[in-house]
């Protein structure tokens, strides 16, 4: 440190996020090494990639203008997706209540809690497409598999949020209600539900929105909805139809988000 005539240092460095220089540079070096390693380890067909960009351009040209001529097919597919989303969201909302309450460590007895948590973890680990395949195998192709898939996804999502909310709730309010001699169901209604209800509804509506997004995809493995139409259009190089479908999906999700934001604001 150099010192001016006043005796104070003239150079100052702000503290870094990671103080230890060895750790800091070590992490940086590690990150670079990882990049090199992973890119090398992946079997990348560079020849194919270099062809990729002109192909992308080709694809864009074929996409525009979007082809809405087969709109009946489009509408049918989208309607099915939306209906799947609605039905699954509703069922998920309802099923999430017992599961969420059971997965709260301050509410449920320990074995129940552990079991419920296990269910939540299991259902969230696997991507919904894996669940979709599973359900297609069990109940056959079509919308039923899609609904069941999204019910699993919705239930696990909402119940996880619910359990977190219950675990974070203000314990004093519950204590007061218990002190009046109220039984458990009354405790639920008066102390627990008022605290978690707004967020529960908000999360459920958010999930409805997410389900609309996900329902467009489960069709790829045969679980109903627009996904099937989309995958078919790609495999047949009908890119202009693909673009039409994609635009409709974007529009639908956008509308869904506006609707969900509006409702959640009114819930405050």
């Amino acid at each position, binding site marked *: 440190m150099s010192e001016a005539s006043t005796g104070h240092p003239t150079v100052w460095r702000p503290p870094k996020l990671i103080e230890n220089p060895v750790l800091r540079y070590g992490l940086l070096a590690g990150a670079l090494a990882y990049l090199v390693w992973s890119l090398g380890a992946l079997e990348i067909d560079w020849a194919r990639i270099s062809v990729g960009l002109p192909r992308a351009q080709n694809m864009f040209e074929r996409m525009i203008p979007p082809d809405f001529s087969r709109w009946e097919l489009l509408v049918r597919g989208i309607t099915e997706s939306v209906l799947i989303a609605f039905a699954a969201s509703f069922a998920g909302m309802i099923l999430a209540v017992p599961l969420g309450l059971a997965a709260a460590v301050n509410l449920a007895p320990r074995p129940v809690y552990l079991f419920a948590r296990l269910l939540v973890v299991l259902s969230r680990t696997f991507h919904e497409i894996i669940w979709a395949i599973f359900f297609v195998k069990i109940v056959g192709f079509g919308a039923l598999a899609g609904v069941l898939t999204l019910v699993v996804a919705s239930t696990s999502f909402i119940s996880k949020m619910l359990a977190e909310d219950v675990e974070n709730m203000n314990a*004093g309010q519950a204590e*007061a*209600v*218990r002190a009046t*001699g109220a039984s458990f169901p009354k405790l639920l*209604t*008066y102390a627990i539900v008022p605290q978690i209800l*707004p967020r529960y509804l908000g999360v459920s509506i958010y999930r409805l929105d997410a389900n609309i997004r996900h329902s467009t995809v489960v069709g790829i493995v045969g679980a109903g909805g627009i996904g099937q139409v989309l995958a078919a259009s790609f495999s047949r190089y009908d890119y202009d139809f693909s673009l039409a479908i994609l635009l409709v999906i974007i529009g639908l999700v956008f509308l869904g988000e506006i609707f969900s934001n509006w409702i959640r604001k009114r819930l405050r």
Partner: protein
Amino acid sequence: MLEISDLVKTYPNGLRALHGVNLAVDRPVVVAVIGSSGAGKSTLIRCINRLVPPTSGKVVLNGTDITALGRAGLRKARRRMGMIFQEYNLVERLTVMENVLSGRLGYVGFWRAYRRQFPPEDVAAAFELLDRVGLSGREDARADALSGGQRQRVGIARALMQRPELLLVDEPTASLDPKTARQIMRLIVELAHERGTPALVNIHDVALAQGFADRIVGLSDGRKVFEGTPAELTPDALTEIYGEEDWSSTIRRSDDDEEEAAPPARHDGAQAIAPETAAG
């Protein structure tokens, strides 16, 4: 009325909060429990209605052995004890009226409670109590829209809705400013006397305790080290309860006592307690 014998509480982490406390309240008096933090005041109060299960000992309320009750019996017993909390513990998102009515939860069935259809006597009593604590007209307000003092009044109304045989009050004034604290203490003591209900009040403000309580109990390290009238609370006694300190300024002098101790005439509609002042 209330008899506590040999109450012991050891927490799972090994902390011994109560070392065998004995206490008897045989008249409808207000008993202030004082002591430093960690002395066991909060534990003692919560052991009485078993919000904290005692490790050993007996608590008998008007002939019922609380410590021996099963789940259903305990719920019935809890209805007979009204509790007032330091942090008010109102359900914030519910209205004032719902909070007050929740005092009757031990007495109504689930569906009535769910649909908020309480018996007419209870609703009328709730309105009356709200009037009494100075909150008439506020029954539709959401609890979290109220100030601290107002919330505590709702808490008091809720406890009294149970028509309890015993009031358990845990540091009712700790979160309040000095003026509101006195108002609340006065309210609690007045109501307890009006209804002939004995009350056990945890309080850390010795001056407040001396000024309002009929009897004082001092806890130190989980043991009762003092029991007597406020006048008997000498600096030596305080040293036993809290430790060495200059107590002369804390103790109220007897002439101050007379100005404060005479409670206002019984309320009959004109508010004895100033409603909705800025500090209330």
